[in-house]
């Protein structure tokens, strides 16, 4: 294709990549060397990881990725256009067809659906706005939510909750301020009475998220100072002693992971902060990043220096504009104060951080898919082995933890690994963040030590909105499972979960009251997995579609054969996805639906049809296989 970029597209790409150096890589004018020198080739291919930021630049400049703009990026980075197109069409936030500069992404996922998302969509559509229904935007505590994706000079921003007034204002003026995580996002942290004893949330509500000085005044950078003074071996021992387990769902011991990276002889090493929080119902990492961004950067710095990395990445989901802005600011401030750079804190260690934005793909929260995305490829998961600690980002040993896991490190260094191990239970140490949403009185992020019961967690958020027992609780996210009202006294620890066949997943506690339509919820979950499957392997690509079709047939009463036949079919589909999919997404795509059928009797299933006590793996247990 022969199209070239518009002036705005060219400027946006040049701002990211710098001006082209020769006609070879896209300069308009030839320099005197041009006929003898060709720049590009291997050097440019080494910049392949800039493809995703470059596509963001195009999307932001024109509101879509035009053939001309894409050609220019391909020239600059020596990427074949077919491959760049394959990458662009992988992400929900990119469009390869022209569309208006403003697009409204209205969340119609589990929590927002219960809070009237359909009405918002209808109202906006009747007003000619370009509206797309979006998977969970991670604003469940203030449902319903929407995200305004804008091109040109304006930046993206979120609105939550979308009240009638806010909606009318949006339609009338087209603008609003950013939806800031305020008191209602972490009710515990903003109230003097309940903030005593908080560890992970202790700065939230107290610290100015834009000020590095205020962060230091609240104990910030103490943990990094300790880590640098005592050295990596000490830090590693503290992390190991703390028995901290990953909070992404896999519950992999952090100390073991860090040690494995540190000991790899191959250099360089990389450390990635997984901030691609996209599990429906999950918003804890967002609240932390928005309210305490320096903590994330400090913890990543400790992780990087301890594991022998000089470069770290924060991979944040594209739908988090405010968290992105605050983290970018935090990184700049840290760099300016010498807390990042060639000589961190004057201790001789070099470490710097780069932030990369995703573009709308749940699968990129899977660690190997995240690496591919960051490398400028389609976000398709890789087969394991090799594991990331052996060959991860750019084929090098890589440590990767999510935001919550990382900020636990600050706390465990502050109080000492052994003291930290005394919190929670023997097998599940430390505090834990829970995302309360749905029909609870005060939704938001709550911190509790491991070992708390589900009932206690719900009660701490003010209990069920109608005052009665919930009809069901979705525990762990869409990749988790439903828990019935008879099981509210389950203890929330890794060991209890493993034994009881449920999962803590990403800490989602979504409560469904009396009026909830659980078959509709199941259908939405099935739809979510169908939309978010990367399409690489057959079990997940086709299985998620067949699962949704079967649920539609059950809901509509148009079954092929009897209901029992359909339930058996669903179980067959669930089994192949769980057994044979490449990654955790496919392996867990049937968990919630299967648990609803087995333990809640949705669609006429029941205990008799249950999976006979078979433990359902979590999304990220799968990652460690």
């Amino acid at each position, binding site marked *: *294709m022969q199209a070239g970029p518009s002036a705005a597209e060219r400027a946006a790409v040049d701002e990211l990549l710098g001006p082209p150096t020769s006609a070879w890589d896209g300069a308009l004018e030839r320099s005197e060397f041009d006929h003898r020198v060709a720049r590009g080739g291997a050097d440019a291919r080494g910049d392949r990881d800039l493809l995703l930021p470059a596509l963001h630049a195009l999307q932001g400049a024109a509101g879509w990725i035009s*053939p001309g703009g*894409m050609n220019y990026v391909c020239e600059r980075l020596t990427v*074949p*256009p*077919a*491959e*760049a*197109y*394959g990458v662009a*069409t*992988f*992400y*929900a936030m990119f469009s390869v*067809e022209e569309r208006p500069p403003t697009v409204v992404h209205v969340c119609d996922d589990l929590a927002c659906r219960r809070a009237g998302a359909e009405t918002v969509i209808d109202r906006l559509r009747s007003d000619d706005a370009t509206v*797309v*229904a*979006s998977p969970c935007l991670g604003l469940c505590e203030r449902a319903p939510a929407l995200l305004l994706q804008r091109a040109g000079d304006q930046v993206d921003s979120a609105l939550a909750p979308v009240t009638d007034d806010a909606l009318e204002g949006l339609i009338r003026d087209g603008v609003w301020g950013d939806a800031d995580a305020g008191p209602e996002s972490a009710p515990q942290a903003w109230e003097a009475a309940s903030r005593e004893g908080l560890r992970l949330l202790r700065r939230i509500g107290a610290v100015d998220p834009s000020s590095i000085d205020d962060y230091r005044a609240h104990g910030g950078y103490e943990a990094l100072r300790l880590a640098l003074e005592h050295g990596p071996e000490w830090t590693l021992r503290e992390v190991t002693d703390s028995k901290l387990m990953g909070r992404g769902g896999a519950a992999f011991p952090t100390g073991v992971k860090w040690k494995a990276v540190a000991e790899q002889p191959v250099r360089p090493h990389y450390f990635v902060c997984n901030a691609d929080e996209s599990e429906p119902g999950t918003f804890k990492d967002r609240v932390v990043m928005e309210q305490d961004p320096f903590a994330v950067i400090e913890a990543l710095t400790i992780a990087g220096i301890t594991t022998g990395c000089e470069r770290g990445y924060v991979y944040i989901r594209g739908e988090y504009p405010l968290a992105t802005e605050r983290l970018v600011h935090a990184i700049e401030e840290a760099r300016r104060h010498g807390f990042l750079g060639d000589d961190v804190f004057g201790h001789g260690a070099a470490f710097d951080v780069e932030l990369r934005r995703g573009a*709308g*793909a749940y699968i990129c929260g899977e660690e190997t898919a995240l690496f591919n995305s960051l490398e400028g490829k*389609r976000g398709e998961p890789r*087969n394991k082995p090799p594991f990331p600690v052996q060959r991860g980002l750019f084929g090098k040993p890589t440590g990767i933890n999510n935001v919550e896991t990382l900020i636990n490190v600050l706390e465990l260094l502050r109080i000492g690994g052994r003291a930290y191990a005394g919190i929670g239970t023997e097998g599940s140490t430390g505090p834990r963040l829970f995302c309360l949403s749905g029909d609870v009185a005060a939704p938001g992020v709550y911190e509790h030590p491991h070992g708390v019961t589900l009932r206690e967690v719900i009660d701490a958020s003010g209990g069920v909105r109608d005052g009665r027992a919930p009809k069901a609780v979705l525990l762990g996210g869409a990749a988790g499972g439903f828990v019935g009202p008879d099981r509210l006294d389950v203890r929330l620890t890794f060991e209890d979960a493993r034994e009881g066949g449920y999962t803590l997943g990403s800490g989602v506690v979504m409560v469904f009251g009396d009026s909830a339509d659980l078959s509709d919820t199941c259908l939405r979950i099935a*739809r979510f997995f*169908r*939309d*978010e*499957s*990367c*399409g*690489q*392997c*057959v*079990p997940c*690509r*086709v*299985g*998620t*579609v*067949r699962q949704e*079709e*079967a649920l*539609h047939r059950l809901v*509509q009463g*148009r079954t*092929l054969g009897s209901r029992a036949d359909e339930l058996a*079919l669903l179980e*067959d*589909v669930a*089994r*192949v996805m*769980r*057994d*044979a*999919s*490449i990654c955790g997404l496919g*392996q867990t795509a049937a968990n919630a639906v299967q648990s609803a059928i087995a333990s809640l009797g949705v669609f006429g299933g029941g205990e008799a049809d249950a999976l006979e006590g078979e433990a359902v*793996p979590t999304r990220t*247990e*799968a990652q460690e*296989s």
Partner: protein
Amino acid sequence: MAVRPLGAVPLEPPRRLLTVTVDGAETRVPEGATILDACRANAVDTPTLCYADNLTPVNACRVCVVEVEGSRTLVPACSRTAEDGMVVSTDTDRVRHSRTLVMEFLASSVEMDLTNADVHRWMAEYEVHPERFGAQMPELPADERDRRDPGHHHEPLDPTVAEGVAQPVKIDNELYVRDYSRCILCYKCVEACGVDAQNTFAIAVAGRGFDARISTEYAVPLDESACVYCGNCIGVCPTGALMFRSEHEMREDGSWDEQQQTVTNTICPYCGVGCELELHVQDNEIVKVTSPWDHSVTNGHLCIKGRFGFAYVQSRREDDPTRRRAGARDRRGSSESASD
């Protein structure tokens, strides 16, 4: 990305032998071998779709999965390297279930009738019943699948029919057609177009999830893309989604008849590389050209001249009617297996 040397003298140091147990029988394979190698060494028939001996395994189809002791999920045999002491089972209920379902998923969404005899045998052996997901969806309008946005839900119009990929054949050049109703998304053509053979990168996987498809940039016709018409994508396609235009047209008018075809092996005369050609001939006309995948020079891959530049052979024959008749007599029925 290294393609293992095929047919050539292996220029590698001797490798340690590992002991792997496949279905209870111990077998010895060299270090670096895959579970599939071990299965084959043990004469265990393992279905494969996206695997090819001359391409890097992508293990996307998952039909070759096996059970490995200690592993929570099933493991793709084609790409997982064997480890000493590994215990592999290939005939358990779990393995059979996954293999059956994978083939049912594909057969319920993709036209599979032109896959090779092995695939038909496996489908029978694993008792594949794709119809249990409902009738197959009728053909979608042209380009509909090329324009689907990722992550934007397409509600099933009728959940009693199984969503499929049926669509019109793409015919945009003289040499070959792309019939994506037959595409199982095995990634082989992308690999052959890319680093495994041609390094042209004219096609890639675009879109996401069930809407993922093989595409040029912006789904432009092949002649506006980087395609150099080597036809190596046709050479590796396991389902007939990519096909010589001559074959496609003969199939359309009903004259394609593999029983009547003979295969003549020769060396491509265009340059000095020495690529081996297999000329598929029906009624004394060359209808298709392939190269053996285990040929040391080609690894099964050719260029546009070797694959499509055979017209001169026919025109010479046209000029000499005696030669044509003699040739026809000699070749007819001379080969047992007329096709690959």
